[in-house]
């Protein structure tokens, strides 16, 4: 089947077997291997990407369901020479070890911060309607779909927390 995707701002037309997941389309058909396959069953979060701004597990979605969609992957956030704030904080806080879950953590955190800014509550939010303060408990809860077997969790959350603080500061200025 022929589909067109906007990936990181670039339009791509692909002719794909209908069984190809969005994850495999990115990795094997577009060479964007930054998005990782950890379980292929939506259990680990390593394949997290943004589709039209919302985070999803790319392994649980068929590519042909995304004709016309905007997809953002880790390659769309920054480059080794020009990392974005979140990426810089992951490096500085050692928010990874092996690095395999890292793109998923970063994409999930990006989507998560946007959700919180829109007022979406989580299981640990005090109120369903008041804007959530992204403290550590909120970040931990909202990031729990992203596993890290190296167990860099405290440092991942430190990185997210710092990037969130920087964003908030920028937002006020």
């Amino acid at each position, binding site marked *: 089947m022929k589909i067109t995707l906007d990936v990181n701002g670039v339009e791509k037309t692909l002719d794909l077997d209908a069984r190809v997941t969005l994850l495999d389309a990115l990795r094997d058909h577009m060479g964007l291997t930054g998005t*990782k396959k950890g379980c292929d069953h939506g259990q680990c979060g390593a394949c997290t990407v943004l589709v039209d701004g919302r985070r999803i597990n790319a392994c649980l979605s068929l590519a042909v369901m995304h004709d016309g969609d905007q997809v953002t992957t880790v390659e769309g956030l920054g480059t080794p020479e020009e990392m974005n704030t979140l990426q810089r904080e992951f490096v500085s806080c050692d928010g990874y070890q092996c690095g395999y879950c890292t793109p998923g953590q970063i994409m999930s955190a990006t989507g998560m911060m946007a959700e919180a800014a829109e007022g979406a509550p989580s299981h640990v939010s005090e109120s369903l309607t008041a804007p959530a303060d992204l403290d550590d408990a909120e970040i931990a809860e909202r990031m729990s779909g992203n596993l890290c077997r190296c167990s860099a969790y405290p440092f991942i959350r430190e990185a997210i927390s710092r990037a969130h603080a920087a964003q908030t500061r920028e937002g006020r200025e």
Partner: protein
Amino acid sequence: MSEAFKMDEAQPRLLDETGQGLIGEPLDRPEGRLKVTGQARYSAEYAPERMVHGVLVRATITRGRVTGFDDSAAQALPGYLGLFHGPRFIRNPAQGMADEAPCQPGESIDYHGQPVALVVAESFETARDAAARIVVHYDEAPGAPVAPDTGEIEENEKRKSVQGDLEAAMAGAAAVVDAEYTTAGHAAAAMEPHAAIAEWRDGRLLMHGSLQMIRFNKNELADALGVSPEAVRILAPYVGGGFGSKLGISSEHVSAALAARALERPVRVVMSRQTVFDAVLRRTETWQRLRLGADKDGRLTAIGHEDRVSNLEGEGFAEPVSAATRFLYSAPNRLIRQHISRNHRTPSGSVRAPGEAVGMFALETAMDELAEKLGLDPVELRLRNIPERHPVTGQAYTARALAESLREGAKRFGWDQRPETGSRREGEWLIGMGMAGAGRSNMLVPSAARVTLSRDGALVETDMTDIGTGSYAILGQIAGEMLGLPIDKVAVHLADSDLPGASGSGGSFGASSSGSSVFLAARKIREILAQRLGCKPEELKVSGGEVSGGGTRAKLADLLPEPISAEAKIEKGKTAESHFSAGFGAHFVEVAVSEVSGEIRVRRMLGVFGIGRVLNEKTARSQAVGGMVWGVGSALHEELGHDPRTGHIVTRDLANYHIPAHADIPRDMEVVFLPERDDQANPIQSKGIGELGISGSGAAVINAVHNATGLRLRHFPATPDKVLAGWADGR
């Protein structure tokens, strides 16, 4: 030039003299930028031209023989390229440092889920479909034992150690603990599934393989394929976690190489997550009996540690459950024994800290219980039982920070605020504190590296891997420190089997072993620089592009008309006989236990460790915290469940095998490294840290649960049902 070095005597602490300010510093990982931007390429992420895709076909019986394959249903699929099987296929991954092929079973099936063939097709989707259509005919041998108490039980004589008279000492002790413990089987569950891309070029195999120990893996793969080691090249610049599960070659490497040779096309094989659970070596479940006896002053008179582990017949590995019991505490009367159940579960092998990770649950929770019986503080009980010499071998200890870790940890954690058992409450939550000692033996494994110094900087080359451990960072820091270079002038090339052969990543020995080889190669270069300058090597100072010593001085560039290249190889020597080296430490944990649900939540953890010289404070801390989190996982969550009929693992994915997630782990995970140099360990005076964090941390969690609730939990993981059952049994 090449230097062979044996660690026969303590070496001068040169890294304390070089003054470059790199060693130990919490520098960012040099490869970090690639990891956070998705540019670091892991084994499955190469796309050689004409590459095709393989999916493993696996046994659906537990024991028997394959009598034939029928692929007629697969033949109908466009893009199906064939079914591969045969005598070179392997039964299970090679055990760590095997250096030869693992069992090649022919038609034989020994466990449910064993890879028996590979289906290859033009696309992954077709290969997956075709694999499901293969009909395998079996001659099944029913009734295979699949539980540890049903198979044949044999004693592991190598592990037997008897001193004095345990029974008599127990009978005469003022206080005793005699209890049975069990731990569940564990999966390493590295985030990157096992992957291989095999490509033959002019008769030589190029293998992108997710592997931890390239020097050994090359020989294992060559042996499995029946080619010479020179015909195999393995590359693994980025490995998405290992934890023991990628120590040896496994089915994806062998099957991909065989299919690629037959098809004359590159073949990629990536295990599905479920295959990783079924067909990669697991950590055995254990049964343990721990006996402690002490006099009224809290001096241990007796330590007994008996265990039963399981593995498939023919696998040489047996989890060294009593590893820490051998060296942590003194007691004149000792008994250590091990039995191995031979059954047909997925074979077992090394998973992070084999031995200590499970054995210390029994030892360190029993110590807590003994302290309670004696009316002694658990920290004090441990302080009273620190041996003078290794209790079993009589060796002297190298630097050992056990007492300091216990004292420093107690002070920092606020141990004096520990509540009376079961006395502190916050709503439905019962709060408690627990602690445990930490110990993990430290080894030096043969390792080689080449360092080249030119006017542009230094290049470090070795087949050492970085599986998230920080090798890229620390090897660069060692070379930069020794050669007076800023870190951005040092390049580190790793994990190519054509480079000098390193220890590989395993057993916490990688950083110290490979780091020592880099140090020695750089030391050789310093000697040449001293010679060129005209001073003694010990007078040499290199920094900021200047070389000085013995009253003379020169520009570094002027001493380098051509690059200097030096290779060094280290191996253990006499100090490994005279001395026993291990990392030591102490864990402190605060937990909250819900009286309503039985849920246990870890609120904060502190680990204080003595690991010799710290090479990079940031990556070392990450390793330590990683281990501590694994301790939480094995204490509270992780459990391989087996189908009682087939032995097949039923918790075979990341939804059913619960590894800790963000919400399980507090932000407050503190690590303190005590200043230490281990002079007998190696010439850089460092020790491993990858496994010390898991050694004892789970027991500290469980001891905190006791302090919170009064419950003694002895079967791990301590899931909420066990907490509730404990209360129901009589609180």
